[in-house]
Structures are given as C-alpha cells and as structure tokens.
C-alpha cells in the first residue's frame, strides 16, 4: 500500500466516523453536507420470516433535506438512537478517485419515553445491528458519500423511529 492510498483510507475512515457522530447528534445537515449530489441512501434487510430482501427506506440526496426538515412537525419518541461503528474494510480504486467501505454497527437507544418513563428512563437498549456498505467519491482532500446501504439484521422495531440509521 502506497502513502497516497493510506492517506485516502484514513480520510474515508474519518468521514465514516464523523458521519456516525453527526447522525448520533441528529446534525442532519452536517451529514447531508458529507454526501455528494448523486448520493443514495437505503435501509435494507433479509427477512427470514418471509425469505425476502426487503427495503425499509430509500432516499436520494434531493429528498434528504425535506425529509429531515419535516421531522419537527411529527410526533417522535424522544429516546435518542446512537451507534457504535467499527470499520472493517476500506478499498480504494486504482485511480484513487473512489473508495468503498464496510462498517459494522450496532445501535442503542437511550430510553427517555420508554414504555413507562419513570421506570425505564435512563436505561440503554440494543436497538438494532447492521453493516454499512458505503461508497465514496474522492477529490483531493474531499471525501463524499455517493451511496450508503444500511443492511440491518433487525425486523422487530417495536415503536419504530423517525430517525435514520
């Protein structure tokens, strides 16, 4: 591995971890700023219950701002979702202009509303497990997401959420 490739891998890792922090902190616009205009985001799963690949969310870059801008108009459970991410692989193309990464993640929920707020508020629960399959466009020091597929291994969501994974 040459120095340039190492540097790009480092930039990609920083981008993925920064995205995790933006999403944890619900800084949606900061996350969107990390994405190229060609960006597509999806949440998919394989359901053993129905033996099919399923898509739970599909969003293009132009749909992201309206999606997040409407969130305050909706009633949403107050319990934040946060992720722990571990980057497994980063592969840089030969020309150094694109890269792909696989990141394992788990999401926990800090219970605030809970089922009964006085009882469960303050505890953390495992919300889901999954892997991010990310693609990037590299331009010098600029690294932009062009695709994120969040493949989750969870089909039981209970109350669900309005916040993306």
């Amino acid at each position, binding site marked *: 591995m040459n120095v340039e490739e190492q540097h790009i891998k480092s930039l990609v890792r920083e981008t993925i971890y920064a995205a995790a922090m933006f999403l944890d902190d619900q800084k949606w616009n900061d996350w969107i700023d990390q994405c190229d205009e060609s960006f597509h985001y999806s*949440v998919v799963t394989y*359901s*053993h*219950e*129905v*033996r*099919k690949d*399923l*898509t*739970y*969310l*599909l969003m293009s870059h132009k*749909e992201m701002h*309206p*999606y997040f*801008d*409407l969130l305050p*108009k*909706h*009633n*949403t*459970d107050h319990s934040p979702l946060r992720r722990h991410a571990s980057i497994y692989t980063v592969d840089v193309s030969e020309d150094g202009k694109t890269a792909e990464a696989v990141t394992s993640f788990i999401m926990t929920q800090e219970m605030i*509303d809970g*089922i*009964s707020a006085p009882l469960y508020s303050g505890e953390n629960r495992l919300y889901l497990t999954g892997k991010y399959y990310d693609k990037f466009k590299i331009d010098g020091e600029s690294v932009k997401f062009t695709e994120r597929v969040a493949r989750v291994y969870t*089909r*039981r*969501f*209970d*109350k*669900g*959420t*309005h*916040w*993306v994974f």
Partner: protein
Amino acid sequence: MPARNHKQWSAKPDLELGEWVDSRIYSDEEIFEEELDKLWKKSWIALCHESELPEPYDFRTGIIAREPVIMVRGPDNKVRAFLNVCPHRGMTIERRPSGSFAPAQPSGNPKHMTCLFHAWQFDMKGNCVDIPRQKEGYQDRLDKSSQGLRALRCEVKYGGFVWVCLDDHTEFNVETWAAGAMDCIKDSLDAEPLELIHYHKAIIDCNYKLWHDTNSEFYHDYMHYHNRITGFNDDYFQRECSAYDNGHVNVGTFTVNYEEYDVAEDRGTLSFPNLPPDNWYMVDMFPGLNFNLRGSVVRMDLMTPLSANQVMIEFRGFGLKSDSPEDRAHRIQHHNSIWGPLGRNLHEDLIGVAGQGTTMTPKSEPRRILHGRHEGAYIHDEIGMRHFYESWGKKMDRLPSDPEQKYKAGKVMGPEMPPAKGLSTFAGKGA
C-alpha cells in the same frame, strides 16, 4: 370542572351505556384468557399470505391463541394448516418462521415434515408416514395411520390471504365470517395476484384491543401531520364508517392529496385495480386484523395477543405480482414513507398505544375509556369501537363498561347528522 378527586374520577361518565368501556377489559388477565377461548379460538385469522409460501413444500408458521400453527403448500399446490405439534411427545415440528420441506433435514427426508426429536415424519396433508421402529415399539397397539397431525380449518381468500380457524365446528367460512366487511376491497384484492413487499413486527406492552381501537377510529389523525396535511378536507369528513356482523367495521374512501406533503409523491398511476386513483379503504376484522388499501399498496396488520398487556403486531405490505421493478420500487417507497419502521404515521400510532398500555397495566386502577363521539357515522365518529365492543360483549357475555356484569345492549348508533366540513382553518393543519 377542575381536576377531579378519586370519587369524581371514578364516577360513570355522562354518556350512555355503550359509549365507554372499563379499562379492565384491557388489563385483566382473567378476561384475557377468556378472550383467547371465546374470541380468538372461534375466529378466522389471516395468518399469512400465499406469496409467503409460493412453492410446493414451502411452509410458514404462526400463532393463534398460544397455539402454534404451521401452514404448508402441498405438491397439489393446496395450502393446508395444522397445529405445529408432533402427536408423539408434543415437540414443535418446525422451529423456523418459514422455509421449505423440499430439501432433506438432519433428522428427516426431503418433502416431509419431520419432528427432529424422534423422527416421526408427516406428509404435506398431515398424514403420519413414518414412526421409526413402530413395530418394535408399539407392536400392534398403535399405528402411524392413526397418528396424523391436528388439521385446522384453512381457506385462501380475499387476494390470497391464508385464513385459519382453530374451531372445527365454526358455523362460518371466511366469506360468511367477513359478513360483507371485505366487499369494499375484494374486487381490488382479487383482480390479479398480490405479492408481499414488506414485513416487520412490533411487540408493544399494551392490550391488543388498543391497537384495534386505533385502527378503528380516525379521530387520532390529529396525531399525524401527514394525514392532516393530505386530508382534513370535505371529502375526508364524508368517509363513512360501516358496521358488519361479527364485530367487523370498514371505513369508506376518499381521495388523498399526497402532493400536499413535501416528500410524498402521487400514487394515482399505481393505484390498485378497481380502485379510484389515490383512494383509501380500511377494514377492521374482529378481533384483531386490519386491512388498509391505500392507493398503490395494501397493508395488513395481524395482532397476536401475548398477554393482557402485550401484543405482537406483524405489519405486511403488498403490491401486485405483475409489478415491473420500477413500479415495485415505487410501491415500496409509498408503503414505507408512512407505514415502514421509519414511516411517519406508524411510529406515531405505536407511540399512542404504548402510552395507553402504560396506564392500563394489570391491576392498575380501573378508568373509563370513552368511545362516545357521534358524528353521523362519519370519519371521526367512534362507531367502529362501539360496534366492536357490542360484539365483544355478546361473545364474552360481559358488559364492556362493567366487565363483572353480564352483557346488555348499549348505544352504538348516534343521531343522523351531516358530515363535517373540511378543517382548512384547523390551527394544526400546517403546524
């Protein structure tokens, strides 16, 4: 009136019998056990869809009233249902939620259901076809021909849903059980084969009836920004709620204005066959099934009561089997934007019933739950719940407002009145 003391809080509301229920029907374990026997074991339940077991030897498992059920597609292409129980020692025959019996299993031959414990084998009609060392163990005292599975009543009906009833002696088939409630959507469901496009589930600490209540009334649309902004016009307030025998209800249609919601797209071109563009029917089947035909997708909720204060809800979405990949992607998008696990409406609905469940735990103080809105049986009238609890009371022989008492009839229908006008000036419409 200011906040009330215990006596005031516990007093009967100034409403007529039938217009409220006692919260113990949502929390009492004895009532819950009785419901399993008198309601769930007597009703036709749509446990899955035929597209979940598309090939011969495919299976799908489910639960009705704690009884494990397995549905299998035979080599004759017929779907049958059985208790998922080995007649030998009571082992669960198939542990997975779905799969195929076509390949061999570690304990069994291809194309057979095999109990892994002692390798008793059954064919797709439920016949016991092999008991290992039967002659040596049982001599002539017991023969495999008498050891078939417990067969259950099963019909594939209304767009390919697989309906199962635990009661061998039910007087109903699926159509007579539905009593006309499904007629408003059956021509759309039956026009061409459907295919499952979505599945996820929730386990919520609330009584199953609270979810059915939510599906039975639209007054809670105040909770949904999406529905306020795309509805709440004159047509919306003309949607009629209709009651049918056996406790079922349906809600008539109107045209949803999807373009009012910034990230929604019009569904007119993909609306189901025999459905006007962007229209929306809903059917609530007693005691815990719900069908939504909303423009381009069908949603079906199946409730599995787990205890007095816990329910599993399985959410399924359906498109047309003939969909092109592009059309299918749009249908999935339409479904998920409001009803997926990140969908705008479903999450809000589930917050609602989870909050109710919190206040109605077993042995908590009984309280009055009001179902008394009369709006001429139009959309915000709570006739759906009143009709449900009238049927519930008859079948349980309990009075919903005082479940220690025997059932007596209450008020279901209110006075005739014209539908309300659209609430274009509602303060929350654009909030």
